[in-house]
């Protein structure tokens, strides 16, 4: 019971070959497109590498780049094959390569699909990585004199201004950290001494945020200090004040940004997958229809199909072939053992 049999007169075969040639070139472009999408995503992730703790999420752009290159290669091969396909002298040398080609094309589709699935599945990992990275960034904000951390302040400030966010989860994260370096605190003044003594670790904590949390869209000049104290500012109530600072946390802002990127990339990748599958199916039909051509009568009709037998039967065939290969190996080992035993018997 052949799977999806179709009749192929000469004219149809010729048209199939031409269409496939065009399709394979489109697929080469799609492969280049996938590669460039991978490169773009990787650059975007690397830009914010300082606030990420691990690089697990980089597996998605890496897969895209690798698979993009492989796609370009196999589709160039497919184009070459169908260029030679209508010439009965040039086609046979390509035949042995076609079976591995189908396997490779199938793998490409599976990998692309896995990249799309991973980009959604790794969202939790991305969030964790950002949580730790941002927490460290906020903790080391004041260390502008420590080598290796001296740019942390500028990084966090620019991040908050560009993405319009404040703190890790929200602006209160700044209240729990000493973000002013000791170099700029006057330890002889009473206020500083009180604050430092008021907590176990001896940190200068205050209900204030850096200037990069300020929202330019606020109608009043930015209030950065004494944020929870309504009496410190005229006509101010911190529970109802929404526009003074950015309300969003930077972790949420970054996750939204990257998920937005992946959502835009997703449909592109799905269309590349469908293009690759159509190239695969067309090449299979071309292959089988050319196999069925009678050598004495090259212009006759022939049949093309996807699988020679039904799906179940093909799988059984594959299983038996694999077993035979394994058994062949076992039988050889058994023969050697027998020969060895005979030899011993003869010797003794």
């Amino acid at each position, binding site marked *: 019971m052949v799977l999806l049999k179709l009749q192929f007169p000469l004219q149809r075969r010729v048209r199939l070959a031409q269409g496939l040639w065009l399709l394979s070139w489109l697929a080469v472009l799609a492969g280049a497109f996938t590669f460039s999408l991978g490169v773009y995503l990787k650059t975007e992730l690397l830009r914010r590498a300082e606030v990420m703790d691990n690089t697990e999420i980089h597996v998605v752009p890496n897969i895209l780049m690798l698979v993009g290159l492989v796609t370009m290669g196999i589709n160039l091969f497919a184009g070459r094959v169908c260029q030679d396909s209508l010439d009965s002298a040039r086609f046979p040398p390509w035949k042995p390569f076609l079976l591995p080609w189908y396997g490779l094309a199938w793998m490409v589709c599976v990998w692309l699909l896995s990249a799309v699935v991973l980009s959604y599945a790794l969202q939790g990992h991305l969030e964790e990585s950002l949580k730790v990275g941002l927490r460290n960034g906020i903790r080391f904000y004041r260390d*502008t004199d420590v080598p290796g951390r001296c740019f942390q302040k500028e990084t966090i400030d620019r991040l908050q*201004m560009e993405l319009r966010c404040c703190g890790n989860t929200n602006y209160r994260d700044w209240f729990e950290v000493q973000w*002013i370096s000791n170099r700029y605190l006057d330890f002889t003044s009473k206020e500083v001494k009180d604050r430092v003594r008021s907590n176990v670790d001896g940190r200068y904590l205050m209900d204030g945020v850096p*200037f990069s949390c300020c929202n*330019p869209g606020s*109608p*009043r000049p930015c209030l950065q200090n004494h944020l929870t104290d309504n009496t410190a500012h005229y*006509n101010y109530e911190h529970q109802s004040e929404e526009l003074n600072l950015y309300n969003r946390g930077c972790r949420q802002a970054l996750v939204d940004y990257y998920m937005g990127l992946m959502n835009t990339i997703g449909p592109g990748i799905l269309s590349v997958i469908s293009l690759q599958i159509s190239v695969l199916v067309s090449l299979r039909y071309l292959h089988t229809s050319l196999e069925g051509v009678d050598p004495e009568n090259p212009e006759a009709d022939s049949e093309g199909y996807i699988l020679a037998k039904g799906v179940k039967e093909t799988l059984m065939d594959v299983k038996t072939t694999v077993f035979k290969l394994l058994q062949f190996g076992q039988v050889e080992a058994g023969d050697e053992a027998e020969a060895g035993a005979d030899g011993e018997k003869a010797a003794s």
Partner: protein
Amino acid sequence: MALMKVKFDLKKRVKLAQFVWLMYWFSVMAGVLVFSMGLFFKIELRKRSEMMDNNESHFVPNLLIGVGLLACGINAMGGKICYDSLDPSKFSRWKPMLKPFLVSCVAFNCLLVLTALLCFLMRIPLQFTLAEGLKNALKFYKDTDTPGRCYMKRTLDQMQMEFRCCGNNNFRDWFEIQWVSNRYLDFSAKEVKDRIGSNVDGKYLMDAVPFSCCNPGSPRPCIQYQVTNNTAHYSYDHHTEDLNIWKRGCRDALISYYGGMMNSIGALVLLVTILEVIVMIGLQYVNTSLSNLANPEDPECESEGWILEKTVKETFTDIMDKMKAMSKGNAVDEAGVDGVATGS
């Protein structure tokens, strides 16, 4: 004595025509590029028109757009002429138009040079417009409740952050205006009453700047208030402190931004002018080589091509003589008419 005479056989003529046709297509694309540059410049000016008091002159970007479109048209026509030049029957249709077309090409090239010059010179009026516009913008910073001006604060804050600048000439411009709205000032407090009483206009002035003047690259958290008071902050000397707030004024920042843009556009227009001159010379060669066939019946014979029929001096004196003759001709006509009128 013709200027730059060159001999042409059929093959050379064909190659010349093909080359000039290709060059004309590049020129069409160059014209599109000039058009898009003009459009881009116009959009950039509009984006910041609030900083220029809505008073900026759009003459240069409009000129660039017009010149770009004109270049596309002229070059497309030139390309068509070159394409037809290899077919004698089609070319004979174009022949009478060719001389006026080349003269208009010369005029167009002069216009291109003028445009490039204007691009380089536009910096000067822009400076004055920006100075006026920014001064007013700073004054309206606090008016977030006045319709028509309520977005001035946000625009100014975003501009200072984007261009890394503070104030008009420098940060001290903020000390001379009241940038905190009266809605947020407690008029019963002593400090507020003192400050308002301390100047003639009753404005709340202070030596402080908005948060958008802060430099993220500073090692210490931003000092916005009491900027000139060294005792107000620990370990602070405002004379030596460079990194706290942006030192550059926004007028300088915007001038250098627009100036850079205009310089690049001016340089591009000059390059396009050079390309136009080359194609014009090429078309003149095509024209003269096809017009001076030794044997008009035989299209494969040799011919000569040149840029000018006589030398530059002689051509110039010819033109002057023609103009004198035309003006004299008018005078004679008038005299003749008068004479006839008085005579009869």
